[in-house]
């Protein structure tokens, strides 16, 4: 019997130790609109934003906030054709607590002479601007489509001063199971 209790405790400890982290988790959903069209596709250039839903552990220094897809530009007859549009990233946070906020960016498309393949770059205005939703801070990072079309950001939240619920419940359950095995006669049989 004692052997079984020890075995149970050992297995539970092995399963529960990774949960000792006190970092918080954040769940959010993003959507985006261009000011030229008030939709997720720009009216000025063939760029479409696709939002995402993510659950991340804070701090996340490279959190995915969505992605741009770049289509075919009109042929450029100058040395360099440039188009730009204002973009608003709308973030809806569902965990740890609900709320929403916006980050604004300037999206610029470049096409070189005689080409239709453009490069898109984006910068959140002003650089390093943040939005705080119920204690969780979102910072948009600039990017360029030649490297990646993913829009990335930094998400930081205050650390939760408690171990994960899984750990607390796991430890408690191990205690309860040990107690139950040790005092089987006391268990309510009605």
């Amino acid at each position, binding site marked *: 019997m004692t052997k079984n209790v020890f075995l149970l405790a050992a297995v539970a400890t092995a399963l529960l130790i990774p949960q000792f982290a006190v970092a918080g988790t954040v769940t959010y959903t993003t959507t985006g609109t261009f000011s030229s069209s008030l939709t997720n596709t720009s009216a000025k250039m063939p760029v479409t934003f696709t939002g995402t839903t993510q659950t991340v552990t804070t701090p996340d220094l490279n959190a995915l906030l969505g992605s741009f897809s770049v289509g075919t530009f009109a042929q450029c007859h100058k040395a360099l054709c440039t188009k730009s549009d204002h973009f608003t990233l709308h973030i809806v946070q569902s965990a*740890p607590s609900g709320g929403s906020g916006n980050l604004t960016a300037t999206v610029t498309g470049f096409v070189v002479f005689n080409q239709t393949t453009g490069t898109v770059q984006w910068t959140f205005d002003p650089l390093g601007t943040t939005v705080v939703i119920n204690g969780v801070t979102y910072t948009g990072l600039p990017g360029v489509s030649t490297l990646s079309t993913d829009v990335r950001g930094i998400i930081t939240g*205050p650390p939760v001063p408690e171990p994960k619920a*899984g750990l*607390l419940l796991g430890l408690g*359950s191990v205690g*309860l199971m040990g107690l139950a095995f040790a005092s089987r006669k*006391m268990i309510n049989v009605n």
Partner: protein
Amino acid sequence: MPLSTFSTGTGAESTAESAHMNVAARTEASSNSDREVLLTSKILYIFVASMLGSLVIFWTPLHRLVEFARNSEFSYIPLIPAISVFLIVMRRRAIFRQSRPHAAAGAVILVSGILLFSLTKLFPAPTTPDHLWLPALGIVAAWWGLFVLCFGLQSARVAMLPLGLLLFMIPVPPVTNTVIRFLQQASAALSYFLFRMIGVPAIREDMVISLPGLNIEVAPECSGIRSSLSLLILTLAGANLYLRSGWNKIILVCLLVPLCILRNAIRIVTLTTLALYVDESFLTGPLHHKGGILFFFLATAILMSFFLLMQRSEQRKLDSTRCSSLAKNCIDSQIAGNSAASITSGQSV
């Protein structure tokens, strides 16, 4: 047994006949009980097989649920089925004592679960928990259906708590957020009261408490939602195993709410007072960031003491009931013995 039975034939004959009847009845009863045990174990195998089948069928949503739980406030979700199974195994005699398969009720619940599960595709949701609550509810209902199908409504009634615990598998962030908000507000109010009680000058404005040279905000992280939820599940499990009275179970669960608020308030007041009068680094030190588990065990210890008190009082009541029923039985058998003796003497006369 009528007296006329004894009047036919001699005493020796009637004794032999009754002994023969007793043996026959016993043999029949034992063969019946063997058949029942065989049937129950067969049903148990069918139930286990169907549960394993459901795991295969619901593999994708269950996998998504576990993945979501791993990175969220709902990290306790994978432990819930294990706790339910444990509670059922520990109280198996009481639960399966009167088990009779109930095909109709079981099928209705099972089909409802499958319908709920299939509704997910009709209502696409924007966020992960919104995607998961409906399939999770469907899976839980399907498991309930399988249980009722195999063991019947009577067993389901006795196993109501372990089966009900499965509802904790459903992630519903709006409910969690409401609980967080409530705990946060109540903790802020009680902390302010405690500050005033120990003579620390304080002014409270919603979640912010202003103290001399220090402003503290009772953030959602201070709500202690993780330990409160864990304590709730453990209390329900413990009460199911050890308490008999329904009122005691309700009182114990109700006690949990003020206890969780008191634990949060004590934590806030202790840390802030230490920061005020000893060293401000207490607010950013390990006692703040890693002391959660200490306060969880403190709350568990307080709850355990209430639990033991209730269990002892129940035990005392049970013992006194047993004593009085034993005494009644004793008196009854004495009366029966006396009357039997008088009948026998009457016959011989």
